[in-house]
């Protein structure tokens, strides 16, 4: 019995919530560190230490915070709160649809934060964030619909305890999810709205105007988000927790490789390709499943 199994079968939801809220940023930060290390190795560099993201965030908390507009911090705080809320809903085994709506809400607050300042870079970043949300949202909803079709429930805990592998029923949905995962993880072909790397056309895009602890909150919120996204991958392989764990790690590695081998797409291409993948793989999978499941 792996720790994941143990966690899923925990009965006390308060304990589950505490474990999630404390562990998710640690795991998310470590993943980000591993990401930077592997990226550096792929480019033939030594790379920063694995715990570098934690150094960055602790530093940001001690730095001066320049506030140009008081709504700026308000929106970022709301983004953070809703991100933690979304993750908690998911990891407490709540309703998958509610998780998706809360996730969208968190994204909207981030875009609002970008619109609340005067910098044109922030505005373009926020616009692109909205375009990205428009691109990936249909696919995320199809993930929930597909899982409902197979298991007959939207509850995450019930889906996680389903004995048959969902991936056999939902290969198309899974491929579609992989495509939008690259957007959600802000990896390279789709890192339009904000990116960790300098010298792109938008300075730092959405987070240009955020400094100090506000930037740190965006970063930590992003770690929570990454853990949640990997959790959704796990649901496809939930029949066996070891397979699920392996799938999460392998796919994260795969995303890092994509990040290092692709140039950035334009937003039109992002939008078109994502909707095409959604229709081709996601919707087709669900239609086929619908007809094959009929008695």
């Amino acid at each position, binding site marked *: 019995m792996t720790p994941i199994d143990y966690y899923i079968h925990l009965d006390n939801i308060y304990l589950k919530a505490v474990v999630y809220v404390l562990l998710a940023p640690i795991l998310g930060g470590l993943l980000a560190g591993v990401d930077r290390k592997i990226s550096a190795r792929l480019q033939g560099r030594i*790379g920063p230490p694995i715990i570098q993201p934690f150094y960055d965030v602790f530093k940001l908390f001690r730095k001066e915070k320049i506030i140009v507009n008081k709504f700026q911090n308000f929106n970022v705080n709301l983004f953070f709160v809703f991100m933690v809320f979304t993750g908690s809903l998911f990891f407490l085994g709540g309703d998958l649809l509610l998780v998706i709506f809360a996730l969208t809400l968190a994204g909207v607050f981030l875009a609002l934060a970008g619109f609340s300042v005067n910098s044109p870079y922030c505005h373009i970043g926020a616009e692109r964030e909205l375009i990205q949300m428009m691109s990936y949202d249909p696919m995320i909803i199809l993930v929930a619909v597909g899982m409902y079709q197979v298991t007959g429930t939207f509850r995450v805990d019930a889906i996680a305890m389903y004995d048959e592998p969902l991936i056999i029923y939902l290969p198309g949905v899974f491929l579609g999810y992989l495509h939008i995962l690259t957007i959600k993880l802000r990896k390279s072909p789709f890192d339009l709205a904000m990116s960790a790397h300098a*010298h792109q056309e938008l*300075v*730092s895009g959405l987070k240009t105007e955020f400094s100090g602890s506000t930037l740190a909150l965006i970063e930590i919120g992003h770690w929570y988000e990454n853990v949640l996204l990997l959790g959704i991958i796990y649901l496809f392989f939930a029949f066996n927790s070891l397979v699920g764990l392996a799938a999460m790690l392998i796919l994260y590695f795969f995303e890092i490789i994509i990040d290092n081998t692709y140039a950035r797409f334009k937003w039109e291409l992002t939008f078109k390709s994502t909707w095409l993948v959604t229709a081709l793989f996601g919707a087709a999978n669900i239609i086929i499943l619908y007809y094959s499941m009929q008695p």
Partner: protein
Amino acid sequence: MFFKKSPWIIHYDATSCNGCDIEVVASLTPMYDLERFGIVNTGNPKHADIFVVTGAVNESSRMVVKNIYDQMPNPKVVVAVGICATSGGVFRECYNVLGGVDKVIPVDVYVPGCAARPESIIDGIITALDILERRLVEFRKAKSEARRQEKKLRRYHLND
């Protein structure tokens, strides 16, 4: 202590001949790999801790240098890279050249050389890290002092 582990730099070319800029960029390549010290080239003054300037500042880049410096949140340090940035170098006598970054903003570390080699640039940035830590202490002291004064004003209703 965390500033030492994760300094983010912003690099600005204040009318240099581009020789030093190429060397600054070279120190980020796999050969020298500044990122192993946690150093990231952010390109955004609001995220940066270390301001790396190259070139003898002239009239048109003066306001930009000052602007970037003012936009950087405290604590911050400035590294002048290349002999142009430290004194004006061969361009010192030119009619429109101010002759050094320190004519516009306070400079903490001077990295000489024409062009400065990546090794000496890295050395200069690592030297700046210690100064950055000291700046943090000063900054926090100033902040707590400001807060104390504010409280005092509020207590005696002097601020309205």
